[in-house]
């Protein structure tokens, strides 16, 4: 097991290296760069543009150097935990991201928990009551959640939460708490705003998870060992949760790989529509303005989390399911 772990971790290094090179190449391949954008932007806003000043800034940020050199400079910084410099904000990336990470994590964890709390009971019910009215009804609702576009749902929620509950439109808290330190008022304000994006982002995940739980559980329920357990007189609940449910969790564990990055990036589109103070809108804006170190560092973080997540789920699967064995290394 230890050997396996070491090997996997070692493979991660070239994987991430290739990813970073790809990210950098794609971002540098755009016909314009941040400074061209800056000139457009300044002209559009009535600021005078001084070519000498632009050249100075290009020099200042090393944009007069060849791309390969800039790439190694960026990656070198990443290795030291320096995410580079955001042109747009003229601040280190780490500082720009700041508090947003915590709000994003809060939002994403709440969404994941919401999805589980809704999807598991419904999935189990649907599987155990296959083809009943309840099964049809609940899965239909789940599929509708999957089918309705996020942003549309967000707009509808936005309108009614303001009309009915008088909540400020958009955002994760009332604007008056933006710069305030954490307090009871701020906390409750966050909670009263949080449920909207949680429900919106959660509905889609719920739909697909219900389907997955139902399908996996159904497959197990008809297996011989379940029939045997039942015939030996085990209580229906015990039968359900001791074996088939546990087996049906495999898909769920292998999904952890994608959960980790989604904790950081969750629901960008909804975040933009709802004007949330999460990292999503920041990433999109960085991509738009070609703020390459900010965007690049973000994408690298997401890639790293994906790779780590996949490793975690592989290891967890090995523990959970006795049928999964680490044969790869030993047979070759």
């Amino acid at each position: 097991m230890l050997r396996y772990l070491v090997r996997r971790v070692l493979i991660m290094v070239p994987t991430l290296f290739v990813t970073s090179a790809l990210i950098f190449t794609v971002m540098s391949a755009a016909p314009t760069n941040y400074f061209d954008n800056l000139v457009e932007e300044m002209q559009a806003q009535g600021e005078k543009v001084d070519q000498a000043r632009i050249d100075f800034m290009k020099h200042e940020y090393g944009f007069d150097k060849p791309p390969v050199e800039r790439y190694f400079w960026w990656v070198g910084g990443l290795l030291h935990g320096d995410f580079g410099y955001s042109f747009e904000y003229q601040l280190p990336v780490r500082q720009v991201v700041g508090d947003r990470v915590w709000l994003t994590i809060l939002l994403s964890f709440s969404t994941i928990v919401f999805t589980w709390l809704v999807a598991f009971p419904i999935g189990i019910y649907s599987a155990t009551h296959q083809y009943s009215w309840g099964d049809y009804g609940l899965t239909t609702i789940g599929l509708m959640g999957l089918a309705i576009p996020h942003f549309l749902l967000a707009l509808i929620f936005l309108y009614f939460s303001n009309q009915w509950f008088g909540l400020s439109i958009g955002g994760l808290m009332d604007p008056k708490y933006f710069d305030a330190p954490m307090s009871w008022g701020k906390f409750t304000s966050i909670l009263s705003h949080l449920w909207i994006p949680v429900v919106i982002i959660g509905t889609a995940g719920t739909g697909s998870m219900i389907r997955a739980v139902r399908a996996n559980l159904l497959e197990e329920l008809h297996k011989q060992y379940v029939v045997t357990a039942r015939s030996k007189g085990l209580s229906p609940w015990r039968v359900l949760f001791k074996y088939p449910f546990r087996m049906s969790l495999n898909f769920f564990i292998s999904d952890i790989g994608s959960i980790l990055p989604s904790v950081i990036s969750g629901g960008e589109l909804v975040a933009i529509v709802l004007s949330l103070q999460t990292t999503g809108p920041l990433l999109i804006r960085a991509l738009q303005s070609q703020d390459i170190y900010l965007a690049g560092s973000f994408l690298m973080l997401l890639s790293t989390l994906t790779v780590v997540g996949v490793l975690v789920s592989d290891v967890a699967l090995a523990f959970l399911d006795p049928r999964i064995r680490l044969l790869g290394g030993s047979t070759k």
Partner: protein
Amino acid sequence: MRAILAALVAAVLGLAVLPAPALAGNAIEKVEDSAAPAIPPAVDDGAEGAPASTLPIPTPVETPFFADAVAAGKLPPVAERLPRTPRVVDLPAMGRQTGRPGGTWRMLMSDQRDLRFMTVFSYTRLVVFDEKLRLTADILQSLDNQDDKVFTLHLRPGHRWSDGQPFTAEDFRYWWEDFANDKKLSPSGPPLALIANGKPPRFEVLDPETVRYTWDDPNPGFIPAIASANPTFIFMPAHYLKQFHAKYADKDELAKLVKAAKVSGWVALHERKSRQYRGDNPDLPTLDPWRNTTYAPAEQFRFERNPYFHRVDSAGHQLPYFDGTTLTLGTPTLIPAKTAAGDADIQARYLNFEDYTFLKAGEKVHNYSARLWEDGHGAFAALFPNLNAKDETWRNLNRDVRFRRALSLGINRADINNVLFFGLARVSADTVLPQSPLFKPELAEAYATYDVAKANALLDEVGLTKRDTDGTRLLPDGRRAEITVETSGDNQIYTDIMELVGSDWAKLGIRAYVHPSHLDIFRQRIASGSTVMSMDVGMDNAVPTAEFEPNALAPTQDSQYQWPEFGLYVQSSGSEGRPADMPEVKKLEELWQGWRRADNLAEQRAVWRDMLQLNADQVFAIGVVNGTRQPVVVSNRIKNVPETALWSFQPSSYFGLYMPDTFFYADSKG
């Protein structure tokens, strides 16, 4: 002198000036002939243009916001904070109410870069334009101008920066010697506005409150540049910035600061700390009514009143009335909804005409009024045939004045106005608005009437006589006459306008398609000649007086969509782009140079007239409509905001011309 004449003219005509700005313009014209006048001490002498007389300085009243700090001895009392001769704003004479201090102005913005709008809205400049576009001293006490060659600037004695340090001639000297003429900080030398006929001025400090700039040749662009919405700053808070300047700072201290800011050197650090227009450094002292107190990044930026601001009302209250403003950042598309939900007190940015009905619906519930101001562009939408297009056939057509005129005559502007703007806009070519003293009806009407027969005749004359089976004309090289008009994707209504223009042009045998793209790609395609025709707003400052530089009417910038390469050539002093090879465009360039050399207003006005005439005649930009409306949402609790006014960057700095420091909450809830 000018003001007296203005008053006389207005009186003789027997007309109230304010409701009809065009008439105010006439008044300006009459006084323009007096060559290079001195700018008198500031007086806000009201709508009638009363004689310039310095108002008595009222006894200052302490602002409640600072009462505690003053009582605790942390801040000097108001009488000591104000300059010895503050600018007294006579609100009743302006037809406004004297207000009461207090309250916060909440505003919605989308981006950290929008902080600069506080500098624009504040419109505190050395010299400012007033509501009638007359120049008035603001930060300066007065300014003497000899033949546009020698400018003597008199500061207000006792004027202080927002941190309480004196504002003196040293701040001008520092900017001139240690910033504008420092090879490292300003690699391209002093800004263009300070260069006359290729030469910079001589700068002298006469005494701590007086500085002088002397040019050998006239420099009429100097005053408009320092009075602009985006001013050429010629001073900087020296006492603050010296700590970042290698010439003054202790070497080790500076190295530490550079390291802490994670920049490459002191030049970058100085650059970052000194941006007065951006308003993003809370430590940078300012002379504006409000100063930023929030460090980036943040979701909400708070500005607080400047305790040393130099304006007072006639009752002795130090301006501004609002204690502060907040700028809350969010998604731009949500701003109309948030405004309608009462989340902003005065809001116009990010509101569009199509939001108006929706904003109107929320008026009663959230106690605001949605007003309509007039857009200040020469055209809300104008078509720009690219004279530098790569496609040879199209380039030749675009360069043929008959082709441009035909396209302009072939647009049914009245229909577009009725369908998309409820008839509230104005059918006009892309030229100055009627509010400008330079306006002539012929300019607006030039080739802006709808005349299909004439347009078709012109196109036949150009040689586009062959047609395809569906009636589409064929180009000389045999292709169908199909134009793709490109727009920047930010403005949805351009697509709608182009739909209508396209169906009009179909009657001429020309097919048009619209293609929106991202702003930077849009501009880049035009600059590289890939775009045959584009659509965007027309003239930026469409309410100019002859004192403004007519650089938009000639090729001067690479961002001009009708001649990007000619513009680039002028902008780069001939090192990039290509020289204008059309006699009419060359003529415009010469005229513009003539304006820069002119030594009196009469000459400058003549240049403006010629340039406007030539542009109207040549139809380099095909204007569709102008005078469209900008929704402005104002809380009913706030007074002194005009019911209707001009919404433009130049000359009015959006709200700036109407002095947001005099807006106030009528009730005490704040």
